[in-house]
């Protein structure tokens, strides 16, 4: 039976005053921040419009030059190699660190605090910046790329991993401890089996991130396809540039799809 419409209040009940205050002050803070930002950066909405137009016009000029394709393979392979090694080294470095950075497996509170701080600082620097920093020191080429990606992957993976480790069921850990196992055995037999699948999935995720990163670190001289992209762009060789962009696009898409498939089978 439908209720008599006339008996129902005709308007939506008002929200409590406190809630309205929070909502409107949040909006006000955001609007002020946004307008200060546009004023400080000189950005205007018309730029958005003009920029989009320019962008599509630029895209219109990008016609892939298929004859350039054979020259893309070698740097693309190098890109993948950098991502692969970066992921592998980053993972190897992260594994011992992440247990030190988890409250339930760390050795003591000082180590925990130090490990967490180091990871937070390392994570606040983007991978491209590491590459830019390392390229002048380690010679232009894939080496600074590998080191940069290893460092960044280590920090991100250790952070994700320590969150997972902190969420494990403490039961098995206590059981092992009760039977006299030390810290290492507790980690190997009680924690690792619980986090292995999730960690593997994180490693695949890091590999995805690293492939994206290794595509661009060449811009700062750290190896991979980015170097060639920048060179062709400086020559205004748009046919070659768009060929490279297409290959990058397909590569990232393929790696993502592969990784998503592998991860869906893991968990």
């Amino acid at each position, binding site marked *: 039976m439908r*209720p008599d*419409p006339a008996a*129902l209040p005709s308007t*939506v009940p008002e929200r409590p005053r406190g809630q309205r205050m929070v909502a409107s002050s949040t909006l006000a803070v955001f609007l002020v*921040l*946004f307008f200060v*930002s*546009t004023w*400080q*950066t*000189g*950005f205007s909405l018309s*730029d*958005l419009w*003009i*920029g*989009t137009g*320019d*962008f599509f*016009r*630029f*895209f219109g000029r990008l016609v892939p030059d298929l004859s350039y394709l054979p020259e893309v393979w070698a740097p693309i392979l*190098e890109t993948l*190699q*950098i991502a*692969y*090694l970066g992921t*592998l080294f980053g993972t190897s470095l992260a594994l011992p660190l992440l247990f030190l950075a988890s409250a339930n497996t760390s050795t003591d509170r000082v180590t925990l605090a130090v490990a967490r701080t180091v990871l*937070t*600082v390392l994570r*606040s*620097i*983007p991978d*491209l*910046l590491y590459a*830019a*920093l390392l390229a*002048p*020191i*380690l*010679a232009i*080429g*894939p*080496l600074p790329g*590998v080191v940069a990606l290893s460092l960044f992957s280590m920090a991100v993976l250790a952070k994700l991993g320590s969150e997972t480790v902190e969420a494990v069921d403490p039961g098995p850990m206590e059981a092992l401890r009760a039977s006299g196992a030390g810290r290492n055995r507790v980690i190997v037999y009680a924690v690792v089996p619980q986090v292995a699948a999730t960690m593997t999935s994180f490693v695949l995720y890091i590999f995805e991130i690293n492939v*994206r990163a290794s*595509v*661009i670190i060449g*811009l*700062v001289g750290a*190896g991979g396809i980015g170097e060639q*992209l*920048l060179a062709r*762009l400086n020559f205004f060789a748009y046919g070659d540039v768009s060929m490279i*962009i297409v290959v*990058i*696009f397909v590569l*990232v*898409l393929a790696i*993502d799809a592969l990784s998503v498939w592998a991860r869906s089978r893991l968990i």
Partner: protein
Amino acid sequence: MPAASTPHAPPAPPAAVRRANLARAGLVALILLLAVLTLVTLDLPPLERIVRGLRNNAVPLLRGFIRPNWHVAPLALSSMAETFFMAVIGTTIGGVLAFPLSFLAAGNLLGGTRYAVPGKTILVAIRTFPEILLAIIFVAATGPGPTAGIMAMGIHSIGFLGKIFADVIEGIDPGPNEAIRATGGGSLQVFLWSVVPQVLPEFASNLLYRFEINLRAATVLGLVGAGGIGLPLIQRLQFRRWSEVSMLLLVIVAFVIVVDAISGRIRRRLV
């Protein structure tokens, strides 16, 4: 219980477990083999070149890093502020444009999964494109400066935010929608009084999360001339003025950590 029935060695694993272990060992061997192959074929500089590079740079670098040059502090702060403002606008553009797209990409509101496919495809395509590549294209198309970086960030954020927003929309409780329809509400009322209140906290939380990502990304956009602290940084890197690089990095790290902490606290209260 007799002592003999408590074996010292753990029982042998069943056949299925042994097979799984064997497969895992094979996978590890394959990964290591690939690593060795990669190391051998990768075009690495000779060891002596690496040692020379380290010897020539490591000491000045460390010396510079321990003593950040405070003369560049004002420049570091003002260009980091620009970076911050760029991230604010970029995230806002991304959020505003992702909002309608996410409803197209969600399979539950606008008439079924069939219609969601084009929306989802567009979002994947946008996400796949590296941000810095977009920045290069915008610098080439509209000229250098923060506007190019903002545009790149805005567009790239659409892909990420659109996907997350669509996931949130697909996860809403249909109960309130039906309740509003049952009391005679139309689509607009359902949208305003059921969908929006349900998705808003999650949307806001993910916007903040994306802002954290964008702030980090914005620090490197300057490397390709798209505004922000990256430009003064790369200039000093090229001339190996380590103490000035150190100051700029210090400001980046401090800024990013503080913004992360604040944003993280707000996000925990939101969801």
